[in-house]
């Protein structure tokens, strides 16, 4: 290239830059198109911002809350929750029968269910999908394999599940994505992560650019009521601050999971947006290593539980966007009791000091603990949470806390290996039953992931019995007993229960999120 050529190239570059920066004035409005459908008073399109990610569009492998939400909008199970409630109602199955021993469940499918491309749904599709999950054996497969022995199609519209044991909450399990029938184009017995064919659901996936945009369009072949909004666009954000700015600039209509507590507080005060509060079923708790000193000593664990002030945590760290929690079973769920409140109260410094004294600690010989947290996995508030916990424990004058942190990959590794003493974790439910909040934590054969090393034969027995009984009252008694043992042994200290917040522009309506915390987009609308 000659010198003249290079000069021309550079001049061209400058001109290009000038043109680029000079085009601010373009007045054409192209952001969220809101042209009305003919005959509809609602906007054709609605944009939802999220900081979550879609991980895997294959229900045989997807095992995170947000992906389950998307799958719930493009697929359906044999039964589903009535939006906004915990009531289970027929979905792809019109009705069902249960054998006397609760081990054989027969479902009769509706005959007008079709996949998004018009392929009719048959019992064989349900069987193929369930067997596919069992064969692939991905992360969520245990929700099927732990319970289902085999599944059969009696005819085109009758599916029979044979269970390994009677499971009282089998219908709750059926509402989870591993039980959703998938389109025949999903790869047989192999994970198909980017498959967008979906299942039978109110929406179909029209476009997906990973981590950028997901476009859902109403499925014209859906048997049920047509969604109120024809097109739902999900915009993925890396952080909550950018999402908040996008909401304020009108780039999105709804800011969903998850804005920062401070953002929610200030948007509430601003008064320009609807801030819709929904009780959430996710919980946060402290894990205590029962195999390592000094938390090996039960009185130390009890003292740590007694010194906590959950209301203070809620206000200081989460600006009131969470509720105090005194059990692993969330507030409002049947069988929940405030076991820790009854036994220790709140900020019971005197009791904590006495228990520590019995364990051999005092002002001259303080208890020294390491408190671990992971900086980003649970949002930006985690460092503050650790700091406030430290302050509360150190208020006793007998505890010295050393705060430590590790990135998620490392943190999980440490937890599984039982290398940490005191550490923070959180839990989103798989299915809505007290079993999901107790067995994975407290049953010695199921809690190795948590690294607390907790094992109590009495607890194991109670939980096993509660899992197989059908009568809810009998089960509730057993779960209450489990919560009391938990408060006595303290391998975990429940801290808070999260609330969910939907922040929406004026004119957006139809937000119905139930205790399953899944946002069903088909009830959403935006007034013109």
């Amino acid at each position, binding site marked *: 290239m000659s010198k003249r050529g290079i000069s021309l190239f550079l001049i061209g570059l400058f001109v290009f830059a000038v043109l680029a920066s000079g085009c*601010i004035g373009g007045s054409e409005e192209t952001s969220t198109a809101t042209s009305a459908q003919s005959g509809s008073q609602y906007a054709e399109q609605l944009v939802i911002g999220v900081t979550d990610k879609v991980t895997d569009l294959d229900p045989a492998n997807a095992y995170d809350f947000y992906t389950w939400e998307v799958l719930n909008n493009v697929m359906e199970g044999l039964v589903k929750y009535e939006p906004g409630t915990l009531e289970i109602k027929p979905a792809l199955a019109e009705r069902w029968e249960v054998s006397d021993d609760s081990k054989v469940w027969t479902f009769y499918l509706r005959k007008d269910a079709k996949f998004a491309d018009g392929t009719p749904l048959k019992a064989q599709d349900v069987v193929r999908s369930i067997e596919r999950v069992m064969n692939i054996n991905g992360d969520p497969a245990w929700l099927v394999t732990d319970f289902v022995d085999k599944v059969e199609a009696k005819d085109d519209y009758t599916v029979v599940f044979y269970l390994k044991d009677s499971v009282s909450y089998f219908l709750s399990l059926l509402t989870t994505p591993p039980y959703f029938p998938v389109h025949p184009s999903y790869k047989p017995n192999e994970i198909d*992560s980017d498959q967008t064919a979906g299942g039978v659901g109110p929406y179909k996936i029209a476009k997906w650019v990973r981590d950028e945009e997901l476009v859902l369009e109403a499925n014209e072949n859906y048997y049920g009521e047509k969604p109120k909004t024809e097109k739902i666009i999900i915009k993925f954000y890396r952080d909550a601050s950018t999402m908040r700015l996008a909401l304020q600039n009108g780039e999105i209509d709804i800011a969903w999971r998850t804005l920062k507590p401070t953002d929610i507080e200030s948007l509430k005060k601003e008064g320009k947006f609807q801030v819709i509060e929904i009780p959430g079923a996710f919980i946060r708790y402290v894990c205590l290593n029962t195999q390592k000193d000094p938390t090996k000593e039960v009185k130390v664990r009890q003292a740590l539980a007694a010194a906590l002030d959950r209301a203070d945590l809620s206000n200081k760290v989460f600006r009131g966007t969470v509720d105090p929690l005194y059990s692993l079973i969330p507030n409002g769920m049947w069988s929940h009791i405030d076991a820790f409140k009854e036994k220790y109260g709140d900020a019971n410094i005197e009791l904590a000091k006495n228990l520590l004294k019995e364990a051999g600690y005092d002002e001259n010989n303080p208890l020294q603990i390491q408190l671990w947290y992971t900086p980003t996995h649970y949002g930006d508030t985690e460092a503050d949470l650790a700091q406030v916990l430290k302050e509360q424990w150190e208020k006793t004058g007998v505890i010295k806390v050393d705060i430590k942190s590790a990135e998620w*990959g490392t943190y999980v590794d440490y937890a599984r290996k039982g290398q940490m003493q005191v550490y923070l974790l959180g839990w989103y439910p798989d299915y809505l039953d007290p079993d999901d909040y107790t067995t994975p934590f407290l049953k010695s054969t199921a809690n190795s992931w948590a690294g607390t090393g907790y094992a109590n034969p009495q607890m194991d027995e109670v939980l096993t019995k509660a899992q197989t009984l059908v009568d809810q009252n009998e089960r509730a008694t057993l779960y209450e007993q489990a919560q009391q043992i938990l408060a006595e042994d303290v391998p975990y200290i429940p801290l808070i229960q999260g609330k969910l917040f939907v922040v929406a522009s004026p004119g957006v309506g139809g937000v119905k999120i139930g205790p399953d915390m899944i946002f069903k987009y088909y009830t959403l609308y935006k007034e013109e």
Partner: protein
Amino acid sequence: MARGVGQYILIRGLMIIPTVLILYTIVFIFLRILPGDPILAVVGTKNIAPEQLEHLRAMAGLDKPLYVQYFDYLWRMLHGDFGVTLAFPMGKPVVEYLKLRFPATLELTLFGFSISVLLGLLTGVIGAVKKGTKIDAGMRLYSIIAYTLFIPWFGMMLQYIFGVHFHLLPTSGRISPGLDLHTITGLYIFDSILTGNGEAFIDALKHIILPSFTLGLVLSGAYTRLVRNNMVDVLSQDFIRAYKARGVRDWKITWYALKNAFIPIVTLMGLQFAILLGGAVLTETTFNWPGMGTFIVDRIDYRDYNAIQGAVVFFAFFVGLISLIVDVVYALLDPRVKY
């Protein structure tokens, strides 16, 4: 001459290989030294049998000895295969992500680069021409302020002013939701021109203004200083005095001076390009720009070895290539350089 240039380019090109190899080795070692396990990061706290964990680890090739993993990946890279992702979702070719994300970064970088050079030249030339005046002091102050600005803070200020307050420009993303654009190169602005999609062109342009201006302004400070000092040097030389004596117009003199001051600026452009890519990581995060920067940051969280290795090696190769181009341009511009 032509043979000389060819040889020079070939040798410089071959030099990229050891650079990339060293970087790959460093990244490989660092990822393995850091605590944490990609499979556990994906599985998280959910209950999973140890044998299932082992199965996943074997599927990802993490059960093999380290030296086997190292050479396996190297061998694959030589064949253009950057392996498969270990997280979200597992098993997707990393190349697919590079193809998807790189154009976004390239587009942002090109615009940021253009703006930084433009602003740097403009402020530098003004400073030199007005040497010793308040304007010159102002330009020098500009260069210091621009150089020290923190991208996320400055970006958020622009987002707030031009987005939230005046509603003039979008604050995040590359294009408005639901706007259809047929992609050819992955560079949205060029694609919209190529496909004749005026609406998408305006929209994509609006989206790139804030992030590229943030990036460009922050990096322009270095140019301001260099251009000013070089121009001052050139403007004090005899040939400029001769021009002035002959009554050549001021703007022409400035243009000749700028041409003469250009050689060190080209070198800086090459160096800046690497810094620019680093700045792009911060800018992408601030503006939710779906490029390589946000991709690497996401993947580090999950210890996705293959994705991080692949992206870093790809970046290194790209920077090496740009550096090669700059060296060649430099050599062409400077008559003193012999091949």
